[in-house]
């Protein structure tokens, strides 16, 4: 998967006529990190600096299916201080997040869905800093 997408990214860089614009460069780069999973969707987030607590966030809904392993990979855009924190919710219950108890932020988190339904993805930037990021949702079928 990585090799194939890497080739595609290079190919797309040279294309003069392309359905992809600059808009998807970070998505293409980030998709290199999904390993053996299958790309499903990407979420783009850009938020201004804020001193409000909790910091402003972007929320997305996604239908997830029982028996599927989902991965959330995060890539931050160059030139912005903010580091994206991604949280996955089932209703109001937080299932997982890339922000660790020690304050570090992981590039990817996984979720093995055991209950089909609509889940929420919430993205904000740590300490309310200005930031821009892409979150890639991918999946692997568990059998």
């Amino acid at each position: 998967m990585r090799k194939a997408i890497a080739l595609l990214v290079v190919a797309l860089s040279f294309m003069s006529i392309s359905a992809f614009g600059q808009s998807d460069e970070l998505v293409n780069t980030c998709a290199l990190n999904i390993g053996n999973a299958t790309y499903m969707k990407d979420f783009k987030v850009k938020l201004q600096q804020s001193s409000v607590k909790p910091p402003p966030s972007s929320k997305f809904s996604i239908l997830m299916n029982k028996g599927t392993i989902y991965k959330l990979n995060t890539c931050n855009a160059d030139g912005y201080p903010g580091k994206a924190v991604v949280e996955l919710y089932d209703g109001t219950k937080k299932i997982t997040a890339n922000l660790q108890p020690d304050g570090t932020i992981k590039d990817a988190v996984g979720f093995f869905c055991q209950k089909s339904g609509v889940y929420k993805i919430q993205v904000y930037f740590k300490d309310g800093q200005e930031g821009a990021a892409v979150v890639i949702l991918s999946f692997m079928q568990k059998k």
Partner: protein
Amino acid sequence: MKKLFIILTAFTIMLYGCGGDKKPQQDFGNILGDDQTQTDEVKPTEELPTEAQQVLQNISSSPVEMAALLQSSGVEFSEKYITEIQDVDRYNTDFKRALNLGILGADLGYLNMYKKTGPVMNNMQAIRKLSEELRVQQFFDFQTIKRLATNNENIDSLMYITLQSFNNMDTYLQQNGRSEVSALILCGTWVEGMYIATQVLKDSDVPDPDIVERIGDQREVVENLTTMLGYYKNSPQFQNLHKEFKTILDSYEGVTTTIEEGEPQTTEIDGIMVVIPNEISHTTVPEETLTSIINGVEKVRNNLISL
């Protein structure tokens, strides 16, 4: 070494030639899709109400997930499950085009998942035609797709680029006052995914329990789709489609879901920590209900392709 230097220099020049000056801050206005504003003279006949847009956003899902389940369950590929592409010109309204673009999108996901690149080109030609007529062809790079489809080694890239094209198109439609087209594409995609899976069950001597449960779990989706279509009170076409989806929803009578409380766990897969939550759902689909769903989906799907 010299050769490598020349290649790297040429690569750098080409990149700068194509991309212009490098900015210290990545152009995230573009990343967010601001550059995708296209001229579109055609105004939507009816804008989706806010409540329906919320539903639409809630149920967006991947057309390849169902195909992935079929493949991992050991189901063999069969071309008979996908739409026979004959004359897409007969889809002469945006309503028909959008529904059938969704259907073809689901078929494309199925073909890609099974690495059937041959039929992909026929499928893409039909998608090209419909997307041009719907004025969303700018999201499909048909040249690259054709190149990838002729090279089986790049099947992952093919899957990636086609899925991303559909996602970008969907985002554009929703952000540019054409949510009704997005809704119809979604309905088509969902029905076709369900059609393929239910036909697999119909042909099985012993239905795979995971596929049956996935079909049962789709009740929430069909509830949402039916609700969403119900927001269109003034369009006879939408009213008819709403009736069609209501028949599928009615066929779900008898499906039950229970939640089992367990212990949350974490495990490492592919180098990342994966959370396994403590709630496990169990969906039961009685045999007669399954037959009713299979028949209901088949009828609606066949109606949609013969519009």
